[in-house]
Each structure stands twice: as structure tokens, then as C-alpha cells.
């Protein structure tokens, strides 16, 4: 009996010791393509093998789904089934902070030896997004949207890279061509994204026409909407545009169906692999104004996380450790850590140069508690305008009311 009790105590002590030493961090993330999925899993494996603190990160991938990721993450976290750490977009911050779901990171950041790797201004952007004094969001990487184009198609159509908004609209028309003489359009000037996520490239038209997100119902914003509708109704974008999301616009560009489309550097590796020298990029040109979307990506730690120190180790690895270098090298995203930005691989990448060139005019949607819902309702409203069910004025008035109600 004594032997049995001793064995039992030993087993319990061992179990307790194991529980203290090891921790498992669940991590939710999205990846734009299978290469990025594999990269993330490799990074997780590397962190698990090298962190030396018994921390095991379990990565679970979910689709970005044009912003659906944020809604699913919020639902899961409120229901008690969310992860410990997740990738994140700044615009979702108010909903999460309002539900007390996120862990403030100030004390962890203050104790972090590499805090200075990230520019202070970026921390301030993170702080302002939560609407409180604390920082809830850890910078990870940024992407600046720009226009991808096919130089060979520009040459065939006699078009040069547009330097003004007017020239851009004109290029969309000229690049729309019947290449085989059968009377039907074979190449469309612009790959328009009328479905989920389309609000980001669309924003460039609104600003170029002199409008803004603050005054979506202004005369200038309405003009931007009219220009956008004209591109579709004049046949300069594929007829499928109202339903086209990320995958469709990228596939259309890759297949040669469109001459220009808008996305960030995350697609550059695939484009270069497919087209070699026959792909270029330029920042959406200025008209009366200029704006492009800064696709920020951050990480957050949930308040329900049991091992917060362990979770922050993983967030550090992503923000300024080896994870930062690996992820940004593979995806081409703009690193936030100064030492990684200085690496030759980033300094010599032409698409990175365009991203950096676009940074002064890059911004995000207004961070409001209406933003998440506004994003999910954007496609339905825009589709109505594209199809002529409602006027540009009506559409913009509805969008203004929905965002700033």
C-alpha cells in the first residue's frame, strides 16, 4: 500500500511539474495561399523547437474571407472558444476591446528588450485604435495596396503608366481590347473587386476624385463612385466584377483576362513567378486627392489566455524575431522591425520600393464600432449601384449613414 501511495504521489508530482513547465498556445491566423500556410506552419515548428521554455504553439488556419475572419474570431472569443493569440486587423479593435476580450500589452512591451525595433509612431496608432490608454495590438507587418499591371499589354495598347487619376481611367478604357478580332472583349482594363474586401481598392477612387471616408456623401465622393460605376457599365471590367472577391480578381489578372488590378505585395512572388519581367506596379495615381489602403496585420493576445508570458514570447518572435524575417521574406510584406527592414532582400525588391513609395498616402478605414458591419454590408450596396438599382448618390448616402451613424 505504501509503495502504491509513493508511486501515486510521484506520478502526481511529475504531472504537476509537467503542467508548470509546458504550455500550449493556440494561434489563429489566415494565409493568402498554400505557400504562406506552409511558411507559417514551418515558423511554428521552428519556434516550438527553439524557444527553450517548453512553449508549444498550435497553429490553426482560417480563411481571411474578405474580413469574415474578424467576425468569426469575435464570435468564437465571446463564446469562450477563441484562441490565445490571433492575427488581427486594426479596424476590428473597438469590437474586441468593447467586449473586454483582449489583454493589454503595455507591461509586456515595457519589459521587452527589443521594443525599440518598432517605431514609436506605430505603437501610437495601435494605442489609438483601442480607444483607451492601453495598447492591445502588437504590430507585425504592413502591406500597401498598389496597382499591378502587365507592361506587354500596356505596350500593345499604346498606354504608358498613368501618373494622374484621369490617365488611369483613360488607361482602363484603352486597355480593354478585342485581341483576336472576333468582336468580343478578350482583355479588360481593370480587375474590379465588387465583393468582399473590395472597399479597399474602391477607396482609392473616392479619394482620387476628391472625396473621403469622412464625407462619403460629398459631391467629390459621389463623383468617385460614378467613375467606379462607369468602369463597370462601360465594360472596362469583367461582367463578373460584382461577385468577384480576392481569388477571382487575382485569377483574372494571372490568366491575362485583366490588364490591371489592385492588391498588395503579398501577391508579388506569385506574379513574378508567372510573368517574370512582364509585371509591374505603381501606386494608384493622384487626382484631386490620393489614398491607398494600408493593409495592416497585427497580433493580439486574448484575456482568457492562461500562459500570457508564453503567448507574448510567440508574439515577440513574430514582431521582431526570426518569425518577422521569415514571414516578410516569403510574403513580401513590409516588416515593422527596423533590423529586418534593413536587410538587402527588402531593400532590393522593386515591389517593396513601390510599397514604400505608397506609404505617405496609405491609410486605413476609420476605426469605429460600425466599421466591421459597414465592411460586411459594403458589397451589397456597391453591387446595387454597379447594376443600376440605385444611383451613385443613394449608394454613397447609405454608406455614409452606415459608417457614421
Amino acid at each position, binding site marked *: 500500500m505504501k509503495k502504491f501511495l509513493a508511486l501515486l504521489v510521484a506520478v502526481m508530482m511529475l504531472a504537476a511539474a509537467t503542467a508548470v513547465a509546458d504550455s500550449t498556445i493556440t494561434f489563429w491566423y489566415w494565409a493568402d495561399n498554400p505557400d504562406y500556410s506552409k511558411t507559417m506552419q514551418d515558423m511554428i515548428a521552428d519556434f516550438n523547437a527553439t524557444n527553450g521554455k517548453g512553449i508549444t504553439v498550435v497553429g490553426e488556419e482560417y480563411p481571411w474571407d474578405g474580413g*469574415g475572419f474578424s*467576425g*468569426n474570431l*469575435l*464570435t468564437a472569443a*465571446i463564446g469562450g472558444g477563441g484562441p490565445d493569440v490571433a492575427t488581427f486587423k486594426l479596424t476590428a479593435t*473597438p*469590437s474586441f476591446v*468593447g*467586449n473586454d476580450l483582449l489583454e493589454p500589452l503595455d507591461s509586456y512591451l515595457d519589459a521587452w528588450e527589443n521594443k525599440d525595433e518598432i517605431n514609436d509612431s506605430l505603437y501610437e496608432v495601435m494605442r489609438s485604435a483601442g480607444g483607451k490608454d492601453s495598447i492591445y495590438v502588437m504590430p507585425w507587418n504592413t502591406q500597401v495596396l498598389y496597382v499591378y499591371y502587365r507592361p506587354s499589354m500596356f505596350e500593345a495598347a499604346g498606354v504608358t503608366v498613368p501618373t494622374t487619376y484621369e490617365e488611369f481611367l483613360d488607361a482602363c478604357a484603352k486597355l480593354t481590347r478585342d485581341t483576336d478580332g472576333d468582336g*468580343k472583349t478578350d482583355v479588360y482594363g481593370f480587375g474590379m473587386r*465588387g*465583393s*468582399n474586401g473590395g472597399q479597399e481598392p474602391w477607396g482609392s477612387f473616392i479619394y482620387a476624385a476628391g472625396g473621403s471616408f469622412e464625407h462619403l456623401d460629398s459631391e467629390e465622393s459621389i463623383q468617385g463612385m460614378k467613375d467606379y460605376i462607369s468602369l463597370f457599365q462601360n465594360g472596362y471590367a*469583367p*461582367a*463578373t*466584377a*460584382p*461577385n*468577384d472577391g480576392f481569388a*477571382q480578381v487575382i*485569377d*483574372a489578372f494571372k*490568366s491575362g*483576362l485583366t490588364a490591371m488590378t489592385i492588391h498588395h505585395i503579398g501577391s508579388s512572388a506569385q506574379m513574378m513567378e508567372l510573368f517574370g519581367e512582364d509585371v509591374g506596379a505603381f501606386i494608384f495615381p493622384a487626382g484631386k486627392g490620393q489614398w491607398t489602403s494600408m493593409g495592416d496585420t497585427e497580433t493580439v493576445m486574448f484575456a482568457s489566455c492562461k500562459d500570457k508570458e508564453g503567448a507574448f514570447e510567440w508574439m515577440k518572435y513574430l514582431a521582431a524575431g526570426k518569425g518577422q524575417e521569415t514571414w516578410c521574406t516569403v510574403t513580401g510584406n513590409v516588416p515593422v522591425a527596423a533590423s529586418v527592414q534593413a536587410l538587402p532582400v527588402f531593400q532590393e525588391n522593386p515591389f517593396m520600393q513601390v510599397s514604400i513609395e505608397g506609404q505617405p498616402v496609405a491609410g486605413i478605414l476609420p476605426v469605429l*464600432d*460600425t466599421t*466591421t*458591419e459597414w465592411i*460586411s*454590408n459594403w*458589397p*451589397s450596396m456597391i*453591387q*446595387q449601384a*454597379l*447594376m443600376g*438599382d440605385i444611383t451613385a448618390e443613394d449608394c454613397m448616402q447609405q454608406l455614409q449613414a452606415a459608417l457614421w451613424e
Partner: protein
Amino acid sequence: MQKRRSRLGENGIWPYVLLLPALIVMVSVVVIPIINAVGMSFQYYNLTRPNRTAFIGLDNYTKILGSKLFWQSLWRTLIWVFFGVGLQFVFGFMLALLLNRDYRGRGVVRAVSLIPWVTPGVLIALMWRWILDGNYGVFNDLLKKLGIISENVAWLATKGTAMPSVITTIVWQGIPFFAIMLLAGLQGVSHDLYEAADIDGATRRQKLFYVTIPSLRNTIYVTTMLRIIWVANSVDVIWNMTEGGPAYATQTLSVYIYKEASSLNMGFASAMAILLMLVLLLVAIPYLRSTFGQEG
């Protein structure tokens, strides 16, 4: 004790004890969520704006009933169900009659015909989305090769063709359900009836309308009622093909509810779900009455 037993019935309390586990499960997964949904429907309950949560009485209902989008979605739900279930029934019935005949390889045909029914709705939607893709879809390619169209048609991105496209998909998915259920019914029809009809000189058409269909009446009734409820509630096919677009052209009530709920506008979505439940009860009540009526 004897008095209590007689009041509870001959078997005493035991039938109720044996029913208890099922009752607990039903209360947990059906009754409590419905009560929760009813409670939420009287609140402004949007998880993206938790600070604004408040009891608002009937505001959600008045907002819904005053909304053009709700009535349009209800109308689309009726079209979706009428054509979706109607065509499933017609083609399912034809397939059942075919599968009921004797020919070589009938077992294989029966098994193969079940494939659409056992395939997940999401997969079916993705498959048809690619078939009907306006740029690369095989359907456009086929029609062009047959000389029926000269230019690609954006089936899912054009208002006039989006709803017929999603209806085609749900019909393709649901035909085997009707076929198998009606086939089971057909096999229960006595051959004596057909022999008697033959003796009376009935034609094939007369046998169909005066023997087969009347014999299948209960099966047709039950399967149609069930399918109406399922199709009205289904979200997967439409959501994965069009997300209710373009410009709401395929937005049925259940898709509208899903969209609002996934935007975390739970109060509004709950109120709409309660209204959809009431609409479906109009279909379900005759079914329940007939079922219990037969038992009585």
C-alpha cells in the same frame, strides 16, 4: 399509490422516466435557444457595439416589417422554395419511376443517383460556382461549343440569371432525396392494384394518376413538407455561390438572417429568425395536424 398509478396510466411513472433523457436534450438544444432568441429579438444586441445593448421592445420587428429588403427577401424565399422543391419533386418522381423498373445495373444506377444527396452542400456550391463561372466555367464553354451563346454569360453575377443558377444547384442536390423516398413508397404499392387496373383496361397514364400517385399521397405529402422546411432554411448553397448577391438578387430570408448574424447583429437577426419560424409554422402545422390526426 394505486390511485396515482391509475392517473398516470397502467405503467405508472416509467414511461415518463424513460422519456426524460430525450426531454432534457430537447429542452437544452431546442427550447432554451428558442427562448434565448426570443429574448434577444427584443433587444438591441450587436456584439460589435456591446455598449449599446438595451431592451428595445418591438423595435426590431417594426424595423424588419417596415423594410423593403425584408419583403423582397421573403418573396425570393417563396420563389426559391417553389421552384427549388417543385422541380426536385418532378425530377425526383421521374427518377423514382425509372429506378423502380427492372433492368440490368439498376443497383449501380440507384447508388450513383444518390451522390448529389450525400455530397456536402458547401462542396456542391463550390463545384457549381466553378461550373457556372462567368470567365472560365465549363457551362459557358459547353454552350459556346453548341452554338447556343456566342459570349460568356456571368451566370452568378447577373441579376436575371443568379437565382435560376442557385435554384438549379439546389434542384440537382435534392432530386435523389425525392427519388429514394418515392421509390420506397412505390415498392409498397400492391401489384394487385396494377393488375386490377390492367383488367379494367387502364392506360399507363391512367395507372399513374389513379393508382400510383394516390398510393404515394402520404409519402409525397411528408417528403414535400420536410423539403420545403429544409430548403427555406438552407443557407449553404446560396452563401457559397453568391453570398446573396449580386445586389441581393439571391438573398432569401435565411441568407439575410445568416448575413446579419455573421455581422454579429444578433438582436435583429433573432427577430428575423422568429418571423421566418412563424412563416414555416404555416407549412409545418398542417403536417403536424395530419400526423397527429392519423395517430388519433
